[in-house]
């Protein structure tokens, strides 16, 4: 895999890197703004404006420079595909929604805050397109390091503890992954994990160390998507972080990790030639995530902690889309990812507003507060119904596509397929039990005093729009699916 080093190739590649360059520029500008302005209120306005402009521009450029076919850049470090571009767009949407959720009062250091969020965004976009172990590790660290800081930033003692926990877990995982890559390098002689050399070497000279290495790398990615058995960091981190950051963690790094996991798994799968039954393993992990996430959520009293367990279970559903190892599974993954982003944010938006204005923390605190804002109570109900997977929401369509692709796949034995299908669907019943807890307290439980009304603000409008998007995704799923069907997955 020797490629001629030429400056012209680097220059040509930059044109395809415009969104990432925009994000980098945005990060630098916000840092500079933080040096110039010291008035917090002023600095907040300037940094959020810069942030939103950067994210919107990056999003626009992603659409503008939509790759028609797969392009390898910088000697194979980066591969731009429309599959990657789709996930980049999801990541940027997640960042924009996080900005919409962030509040001046709860963010102590605006410049640092937005710099860190943008860094995660940059890391995620690079991670999604990475095609080379070095790029993979660098961009992964670009996601991880700001994430640890975001957990702790301005969140007091609890935040520092959660941040440290996250850091200890995360750095161990990184070390493990580096070890995995080094083993793979010795087995294949290349870091370019989609190259034919890599795949040929693994196919022909399969050694136990190579399997160990792939297990180590997959474990690291499972940590990123907070899937069982590497999910333990999520509940503490989410609970300690602000609602905006919890929503951010449960979507942006997770979706980026998922896109890369899809790619890595397909590479390790060796087009079905691998003796390791990856499909069955992913299926079992997915079932474990769904079940443990759901069972864990049953006993949670804290709203954000409950959502952390929910995100573990949802990670399981997203993993399930990887089991078929075919195009239709990836379509289902793309659809589910988009819907997941919207339904998760819809829920977190409402939790965030109740938390901010009425200091609602636990599920019981929601008692009888539907009167505070009927619109928001309906939004969170819609979001949670979507997370369960019931009509009339996009969550239903997402699960329908997911289970359809699973049913029609041939990657696992029919019996196993049936078991996955039935277990996955039965978990919906368990999920119903805890997801409906919040609407139950909101609507059904009475309270003595009349709750104070929530003020109407930008957050409220955005949450209603998110809920409407979920309804549209149900009535007209073809809008999104038609677009997804145009993308192709290229290894």
């Amino acid at each position, binding site marked *: 895999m020797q490629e001629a080093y030429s400056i012209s190739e680097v220059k040509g590649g930059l044109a395809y890197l415009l969104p990432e360059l925009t994000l980098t520029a945005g990060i630098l500008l916000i840092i500079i703004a933080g040096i110039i302005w010291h008035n917090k209120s002023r600095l907040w306005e300037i940094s959020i404006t810069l942030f939103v402009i950067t994210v919107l521009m990056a999003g626009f450029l992603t659409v503008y420079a939509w790759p028609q076919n797969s392009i390898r850049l910088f000697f194979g470090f980066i591969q731009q595909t429309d599959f990657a571009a789709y996930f980049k767009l999801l990541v940027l949407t997640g960042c924009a929604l996080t900005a919409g959720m962030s509040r001046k009062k709860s963010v102590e250091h605006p410049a640092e805050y937005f710099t860190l969020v943008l860094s995660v965004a940059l890391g995620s976009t690079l991670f999604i397109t990475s095609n080379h172990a070095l790029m993979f590790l660098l961009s992964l660290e670009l996601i991880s390091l700001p994430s640890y800081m975001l957990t702790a930033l301005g969140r007091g003692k609890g935040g520092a503890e959660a941040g440290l926990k996250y850091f200890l877990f995360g750095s161990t995982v990184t070390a493990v992954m580096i070890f995995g890559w080094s083993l793979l390098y010795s087995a294949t002689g290349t870091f370019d994990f989609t190259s034919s050399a890599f795949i040929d070497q693994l196919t022909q000279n399969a050694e136990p160390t190579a399997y160990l290495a792939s297990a180590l790398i997959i474990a690291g990615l499972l940590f990123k998507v907070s899937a069982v058995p590497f999910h333990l960091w999520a509940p503490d981190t989410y609970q300690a972080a602000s609602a905006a950051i919890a929503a951010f963690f449960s979507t942006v790094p997770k979706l980026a990790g998922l896109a890369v996991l899809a790619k890595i798994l397909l590479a390790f799968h060796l087009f079905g030639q691998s003796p390791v039954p990856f499909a069955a393993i992913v299926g079992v992990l997915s079932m474990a995530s769904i079940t443990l996430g759901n069972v864990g959520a049953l006993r949670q009293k804290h709203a954000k902690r409950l959502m952390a367990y929910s995100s573990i279970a949802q990670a399981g559903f997203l993993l399930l889309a990887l089991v078929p190892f*075919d*195009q*239709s*599974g990836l*379509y*289902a993954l793309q659809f589910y990812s988009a819907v997941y982003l919207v339904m998760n944010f819809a829920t977190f938006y409402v939790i965030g507003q109740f938390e901010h204005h009425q200091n609602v923390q636990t599920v019981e605190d929601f008692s009888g507060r539907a009167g505070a804002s009927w619109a928001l109570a309906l939004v969170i109900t819609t979001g949670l*119904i979507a997370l369960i997977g*019931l*009509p*009339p929401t996009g969550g*239903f369509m997402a699960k*329908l*596509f997911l*289970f*359809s*692709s699973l*049913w*029609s796949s041939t990657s696992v034995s029919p*019996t196993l397929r*049936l078991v996955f*299908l*039935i277990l996955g*669907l*039965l978990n*919906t*019943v368990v999920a*119903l*039990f805890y997801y*409906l807890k919040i609407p*139950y307290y909101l*609507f*059904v439980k009475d309270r003595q005093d009349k709750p104070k009304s929530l003020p109407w603000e930008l957050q409220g409008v955005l949450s209603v729009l998110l809920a409407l998007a979920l309804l549209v995704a149900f009535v007209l*799923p*073809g809008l999104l*699916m*038609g677009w997804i*069907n145009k993308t192709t997955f290229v290894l």
Partner: protein
Amino acid sequence: MPYLLSLLIFSPLAAVLLAGLLPSRKHQWFRMLALAVSIGQLLALIALFNSLSPNINLYYAEQVRWLNISLGTWGVLQANYLVAVDGLSLPLVALSVVVLLIAVISSWHEQKNVKGYFMLVLTLNGAIIGSFCALDMLLFYVFFEFMLIPMYFLIGIWGGARREYASVKFLLYTLFGSILILIVFIGLYLGVGVVQFGQILHSFSVLDWQDAHHHMAGSWLTSSETYGGFTLKAWAFLFLLVGFGIKLPTVPFHTWLPDAHVEASTPISVILAALLLKVGGYGLARVVLPVFSAETIQFSGLVGGLGVVSIVYGGFNALASKDLKRLIAYSSVSHMGFVLLGLASGTTEGIAGAVYQMVSHGIITSMLFLIAGVLYDRTHDRLIDNYSGLATVMPRYTALIMIAFFAGMGLPGFSGFIAEVLVLLGGFNPLSLVPVWLPALAASGLLLAAGYFAWTIQRMLYGPFVTKGFAGTLTDLTSRERFMLVSLAILTLWLGILPQGLLSLINPFAEGLSRLLSDHLVP
């Protein structure tokens, strides 16, 4: 009037949106809105019956493309907005319109959060009628699930003391059932392929599903591999039987029903018993029997047996119930057993009897729950033992109780008689798929019904009037209550004395289904 069914389905849903915009303190507006929708639906229904043309199977079919999504290499997912009514669904749609009207009238004095209440009732209204009309099973499933959440809140917010427990139990049971149904529906649409324009269309239409030519070669629908002793088709049949059996409900999946009924308020109990249970029977007749005909024959003993167990077990439980609403709830379990038995018999009479029983039970059980509600409104006490000699203070009420209870017993002259006799005739028919001792046992259920209803009459109505602290509160029926009960009484008598009208509507469907089943009989 080509869009009559859409009008029926969407007028309540449009009213929900309208109600959302109205100020919540104007209680009267919401009542009037719900009443207006129901009366409008009744008029639309009359128009529908007036323009029925004989000799066709599907009336008022409407089809609009909903989803047409390519899902990778194996074809195209297609779902349509496909609604129509036939001899199975039209009687149930008519029943729904009538019962929902009664439920609105019965809710007139609801005081707690009136806006939310009527918005949920209207949502439920559209979902119920939609699920009876939908022939595209994705659409059916959507309406089916759409019923759950409103019902959950209606029980959970406006119910009695243990409403929270009851509403969660209702939701978990029903959702569990609906998941089993969804598994099979996904399997069916993937296994059924209609070749059109060189593409394989995976359709959700039950009309495609029941046509064995569309069952794709090599799919699970044509495979004879067995898992745990059964083919996949047999498993699918059992899944659907459990899924719809929970809804029906049949013993042993019935335990959510007494709780939900006892805790729900009167109008909600009426909707639950009269309409939501019917969706279970409807699903069996609409999907399970036509699509899984061979399995129906294979398992007819099981299905009929479950029916008979429900009849007898429900009857004994009713006999032992101390709470009037619980008694009525168990009588529902018992009556719905006849639906299972009738369907399992596979004969024209049996199937027609099952459909007739669904309509008849809808009317009778509405009356029974309204009767329990009349007492509960006045005294907040439903224990049968606490009443005696009501005949002396509430003569009009007594007369209507008698009618309702006699109808529930299945006495001649009432609709229940026709239905149960048809089911038993179907069971005894030499072509019946069930062994002859099953209908014989079922007949004993009639005896049980006579027992628990007559005993209740004796305990509550006869004897000296004993006041247990609610002497002055026991006034006779108000004109609103009288209107509801008398109109339902007229309906059950009408269907009991002149069954021909409804039977001629049901008959083509029952004959068609029976023929479909006999085609699968191995001679």
